[in-house]
């Protein structure tokens, strides 16, 4: 177990170090998220006011879109100089590599989400901070669910030719439950009369989703990555 965490930490630290050098992923993803929210504003704002209930949808769709972008980039880096082969050749528990990459993506998305939440609250006049802790729980569980599936998929798609197209094609249908849960949970929080009971239902559903899909991803990572 200690070794597992050690390998995870090595991979995370490596990714953070690379990112701190060129900030490419962070800046491009942030910019993409900002333009996403803006584009949505033109679709969902009428006469200076946001259409009721659109904020939660915009928030989660932006997260899903920028998440896909980040996932693609995160593994493109491993593919670039065949570095992934170096990782897979190492005598380590391969799931530890998966967890390392997942944590890296989660950290990046956390930064992106902090900005997106503020933007959506500001541009869509949504009371997102009224139940800040609930929103934080929803966001973290939802992001873990989305990124755990996404990390596995973009890792396994590295071997295929049309990976840039295939990632969203595979990822969105499989993670639709996360989107439904996240959007509905957020909507329960921001509607005029917040429904905390319903929000709790969605949070617990997300929790189970995360447990099942992280376990499944850890379990399938090794056989999927060997040729």
């Amino acid at each position: 177990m200690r070794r597992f965490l050690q390998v995870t930490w090595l991979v995370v630290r490596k990714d953070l170090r690379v990112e701190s050098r060129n900030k490419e992923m962070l800046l491009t993803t942030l910019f993409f998220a900002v333009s996403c929210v803006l584009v949505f504003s033109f679709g969902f704002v009428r006469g200076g006011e946001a259409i009721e209930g659109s904020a939660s949808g915009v928030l989660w769709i932006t997260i899903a879109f920028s998440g896909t972008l980040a996932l693609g980039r995160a593994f493109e880096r491993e593919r670039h100089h065949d570095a992934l082969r170096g990782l897979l050749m190492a005598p380590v528990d391969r799931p530890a590599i998966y967890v390392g990459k997942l944590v890296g993506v989660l950290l990046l998305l956390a930064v992106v989400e902090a900005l997106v939440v503020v933007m959506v609250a500001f541009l869509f006049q949504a009371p997102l901070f009224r139940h800040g802790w609930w929103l934080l729980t929803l966001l973290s569980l939802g992001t873990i669910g989305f990124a755990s599936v996404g990390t596995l998929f973009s890792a396994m798609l590295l071997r295929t030719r049309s990976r840039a197209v295939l990632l969203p094609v595979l990822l969105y249908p499989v993670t639709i439950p996360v989107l439904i849960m996240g959007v509905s949970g957020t909507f329960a929080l921001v509607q005029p009369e917040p429904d905390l009971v319903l929000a709790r239902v969605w949070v617990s559903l997300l929790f189970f989703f995360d447990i099942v899909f992280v376990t499944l991803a850890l379990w399938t990572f090794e056989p999927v990555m060997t040729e």
Partner: protein
Amino acid sequence: MNRRLFPWLIGLSLVFFVVAPILIVRAPLEQEMGLIQKIFYFHFSAWMAMYLGICILGISSALFLFRRKPAADRLAVSAAEAAIVFGLMGLITGPIWAVKSWGVWWNWDARTTIALILELILVAYLILRTYGGPGSDRLAAGLGMFAMANLPFLYVSTNIWRTIHPPTSVVPTLPVDFGIPLWWSFAGFIVLCLALLTARVRLEEQRATLDRLYLALEDE
């Protein structure tokens, strides 16, 4: 074995399908929805056949991924295709029912939505197999397992998200007059699903044989 099984299965499903309309016609009319409710017998059964296909897909994908059984992979593709066909049946009969009962073709009814999402996942599965290049069977097997694991979550989340559909609990408590044609057509669809599966697996086996033959030719 496969080859001998197919004529029996297809014959049996024909018996089911020829008798089913008679039973359905004889069944009493449902009070609130009237005649259109009779779609239910096929609609429900098509869903069940689709779920069966997805479960077979998930289990055989796991077998292929962890036990490396090529036969399991052939079963997985076949199950995915069959599930798509039955899903389409449900997806087309659903709106026909909806337009009569609720006046709109599509109302985001929970079960139709689930089927639509599952259909998307299954099509993604086939896309991955077609365009993934060499080794994509392994990747597709991973996706197949995720599809099956998604079933309960899709079910619960869509049901809470949107419910107009007659609740599922109605099914077991249907009076006998409704029940007999329902379970009859249910059985018919399951047998049909198995028949289509055996035929499709046969196709996949012949393809594998052809591949082996070409390899043998090349080896000479």
